């Protein structure tokens, strides 16, 4: 799999400890849900950020997606909590 840009917002960003990074997930990581599981196993800070996948929202190339969305072809994937704008 090619290189992927990940961006984090709000408390996901705070827990991961960075706003963005480049990763190269293994080929077995096919969906957003797979990516969340893979990230959660990368260390304590990730385990904390992704401990409750139900409250994690995701966007692929700046469009909302569901956990079952395929990540192939994505350039930028964002993870964040439920939105509280307006």
């Amino acid at each position, binding site marked *: 799999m090619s290189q992927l840009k990940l961006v984090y917002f709000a408390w996901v960003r705070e827990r991961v400890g960075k706003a963005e990074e480049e990763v190269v997930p293994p080929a077995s990581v096919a969906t957003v849900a797979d990516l969340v599981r893979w990230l959660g196993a990368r260390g304590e800070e990730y385990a904390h950020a992704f401990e409750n996948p139900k409250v994690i929202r995701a966007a692929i190339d700046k469009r909302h997606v569901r956990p079952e969305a395929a990540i192939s072809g994505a350039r930028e994937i964002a993870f964040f909590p439920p939105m509280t704008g*307006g």
Partner: protein
Amino acid sequence: MPATIRLQRENFDPGAEAAALSRGRTDVGAVVTFTGICRGAEDGAPIAALTLEHYPGMAEAEIVRHVEEAGKRWPLLGVTVIHRYGRIEPGENIVLVVTASSHRDAAFAAAEFLMDYLKTRAPFWKQVESASGRTWVEAKAADDVAADRWAKPPGREAAE
């Protein structure tokens, strides 16, 4: 339909933005303006400020998409959406939605639709600054319920 969408740190003037939507034209019969303001307390506890984080690029795109959707659903003659980010103190404006139409029903419905979507779908996150530190505002189930009333049958967008 003229649409103005701005994300900015600076404050804005709701009256001037609303007036701009009907100035120099005589087809607008109704202008609805919603101004969201930072309150001095959250759940009963005083706050010092809100800090709004946003996802640059996606926030604009999401708002553009919902303004276009509003233009398809109602006969609008103009829409302005301004959303601030950064640190905002109690009493300051946070968000503005202005809708113009020939008739009031379309203007009211579109303004409510846009606010419900901004609350639940636009990538903004509010952090509260208070005497007890900083905490992220939790999403309200009531906001999801409010947004759901505008939902059309599924299949139109991946995450709807």
